[in-house]
């Protein structure tokens, strides 16, 4: 079974209450935005974290990607707010 590691950062992590989770890979054709819609149904924390997808950013295997990107055979997806370092 192919798996997908999802990582959460900043207020996404705080709302969901965990750093990340491993899920069954939803398929190479699944878009990130559609996966987010599925995750949103997993509970109140998820619903809060994913209430406004336009406030979210994503990285697949350590590279920024738009939310309408498909997962492909990525093994790591990260979901987080726009970065604020520096």
């Amino acid at each position, binding site marked *: 079974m192919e798996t997908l590691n999802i*990582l959460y*950062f*900043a*207020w996404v*992590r705080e709302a969901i209450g965990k750093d990340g989770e491993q899920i069954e890979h939803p398929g190479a054709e699944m878009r990130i935005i559609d996966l987010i819609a599925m995750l949103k149904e997993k509970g109140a924390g998820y619903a809060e974290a994913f209430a406004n997808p336009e406030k979210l950013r994503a*990285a697949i295997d*350590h*590279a*920024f990607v738009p939310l309408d990107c498909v997962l492909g055979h990525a093994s790591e997806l*990260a979901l*987080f*707010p*726009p*970065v*604020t*370092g*520096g």
Partner: protein
Amino acid sequence: MIEFRVGADDFDAADLIARLEALGGGAVASFTGIVRGDDGLVSMRLDHYPAMTSAQISTLIDKAMERWPLLGVAVIHRVGLLSPGDRIVFVGTASRHRAAALEACGYLIDWLKTSAPFWKKEVFADGTARWVQARAEDDAARDRWG
């Protein structure tokens, strides 16, 4: 000299600058970002995405070195709990040309702010805390590099 570090420890900006100066290039530029104590800020926590941070900073340094004739680059970014007055970030560059050193320094800090996965959470004297919001002007600063 290429040096980048992401970690909780403070760093010695003077030592980094001295090492950049010793490369023989004639021009050393640096930028240091420090936690401001505005609005009753008592602490700041920096989270990051370690594997991606390293990859992004490494790529960023490569791009700067392709674009400008640099003899040395140092990028240090702290994470974890910081207080007002603490250094957050340091970018130093060495080149034979002052314009290259200064421009590369500006490029690196502009890109670091918008493409390295760090997130700041501010804690205030009244007990409130908030995640810092990304600013459109940071994206604009990055975009002027084309």
